[in-house]
């Protein structure tokens, strides 16, 4: 029904472990976008959310 406001260190660790696992999978899936955005950053120093979206839309 509900969750505790205060989490235990074990719950914290589990939450982080799940998040890291999810992000790792996501980064593998989005590898092409990662490459394109890092290339963009090397050329332009900064990237805005709009530019990120354009790159992601072009790939997917």
């Amino acid at each position, binding site marked *: 029904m509900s969750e505790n406001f205060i989490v235990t260190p074990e719950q914290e660790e589990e939450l982080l472990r799940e998040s890291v696992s999810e992000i790792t999978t996501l*980064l593998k899936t989005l590898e092409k976008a990662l490459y394109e955005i890092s290339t963009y950053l090397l050329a332009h120093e*900064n990237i805005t959310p709009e530019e*990120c979206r354009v790159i992601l839309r072009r790939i997917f």
Partner: protein
Amino acid sequence: MTVGFNSAALDTLTNEAAIYAMREGRTVVETADFEAVKEKVLLGKRKILSFTDEEREIQAIYQAAKAVIATWLDVEFEKIGIVNTRLLSQEHEILSKTQLLHALKSILPAVSLPRHITMSSSPMRVWIFLKPKN
């Protein structure tokens, strides 16, 4: 935009903005060019110059990972650069668990990047960002 800049900083800002516009293939410098290089002049210039090419590539991949995840999970950010990350602060006082988790995930790529990433020029390792395995 330039509050606190001395004349030397203004000079550098103008030069950097002009170089940026030229890189983009334009002959006119726009306000956006100044915005794009402001951080570099304010706090990042020395840092960028002190990066080796390999360190710069690693930093670009690390920041790109943040940008990819933030965009994918709809975490708002102003811009992400090689030397800094500008996430937008949330105006709501109450955030859902999902929103908090997404914000957390957008700064997690440091421990999630694949072990080997190959850029166009040179293969390299990003192990320095990885948590050591126990």
